[in-house]
């Protein structure tokens, strides 16, 4: 009986932890949406690679268009996944997730404007990867465990992209926004319900 008592107490503690995790986490991160964003980002990388040398303004315009496409894809997939699971987008966990997700992205938009205004394009891949990664590291505290890991991978590519010319930085964008979205999108879709 002591073993049964101990097991029951352990089960109770596990039950409490799971209830707390369920209540504190925003879980409607769309795996298939991330996968789709990865595919469009790989296409954008291939399309823009020749432009890095002769027309960086057009390179920037196409990546900004890709950001809009990715936002629509991600937003729609998140809304559909949330609706299917009955997740509230206004709960405390969701609010904390979105605030910490969007704060680094707003910083990224401001820095993009400032850098482009100065006629420089080389730091953009690094800025985007670092701040997009930071968005997932910070918001990941209120979501599923794989999210901060994905954020750190983006930041790692961002650090590398800081030291290379735009022609190589664009490839890091492909590796991050393309490769990481596809890999982590599949992991999330497989393990976290789509």
């Amino acid at each position: 009986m002591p073993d049964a008592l101990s097991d029951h107490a352990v089960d109770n503690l596990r039950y409490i932890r799971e209830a707390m995790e369920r209540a504190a986490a925003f879980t409607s991160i769309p795996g298939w949406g991330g996968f789709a964003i990865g595919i469009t980002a790989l296409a954008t990388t291939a399309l823009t690679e020749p432009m890095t040398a002769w027309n960086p303004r057009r390179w920037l315009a196409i990546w900004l268009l890709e950001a809009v496409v990715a936002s629509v894809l991600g937003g729609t997939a998140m809304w559909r996944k949330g609706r299917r699971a009955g997740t509230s987008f206004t709960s405390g966990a969701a609010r904390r997730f979105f605030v910490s997700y969007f704060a680094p992205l707003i910083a990224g938009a401001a820095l993009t404007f400032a850098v482009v205004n100065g006629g420089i394009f080389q730091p953009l891949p690094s800025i985007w990867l670092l701040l997009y990664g930071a968005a997932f590291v910070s918001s990941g505290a209120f979501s599923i465990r794989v999210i901060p890991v994905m954020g750190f991978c983006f930041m790692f590519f961002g650090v590398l992209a800081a030291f290379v010319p735009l022609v190589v930085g664009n490839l890091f964008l492909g590796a991050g926004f393309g490769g990481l979205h596809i890999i982590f999108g599949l992991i999330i879709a497989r393990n976290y319900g789509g």
Partner: protein
Amino acid sequence: MAARTAAKRAARAVESAIPDLDRLIHEKTRLAIVSALAVNPTLTFNELKAILKTTDGNVSAHTRKLEEANYLTCRKSFEGRMPKTEYSLSAAGRRALERYLDHMEALIKATRGT
């Protein structure tokens, strides 16, 4: 069926092993409500229902018992025309959860030491 009977037997054994165990939050649904509110300043009725994956009646019955014990505070308001009920954990409720966790840890230590 056998597993459920064994679990019930173990639950009763826990109750008899710890005479001052808080039976109010020893019940699974109420334990989940208190745990969820321990990591959120407030949760609405619908949020609790989604977290617990249970019925309106079940949430209503268990939150009422916790309210009667002063473990929860409840605030009713309107969002547009829709009634909104928000719950938060009281200081007494937080203390009860801490005591319950202490009891479970003590039980594990005691039984693994034997």
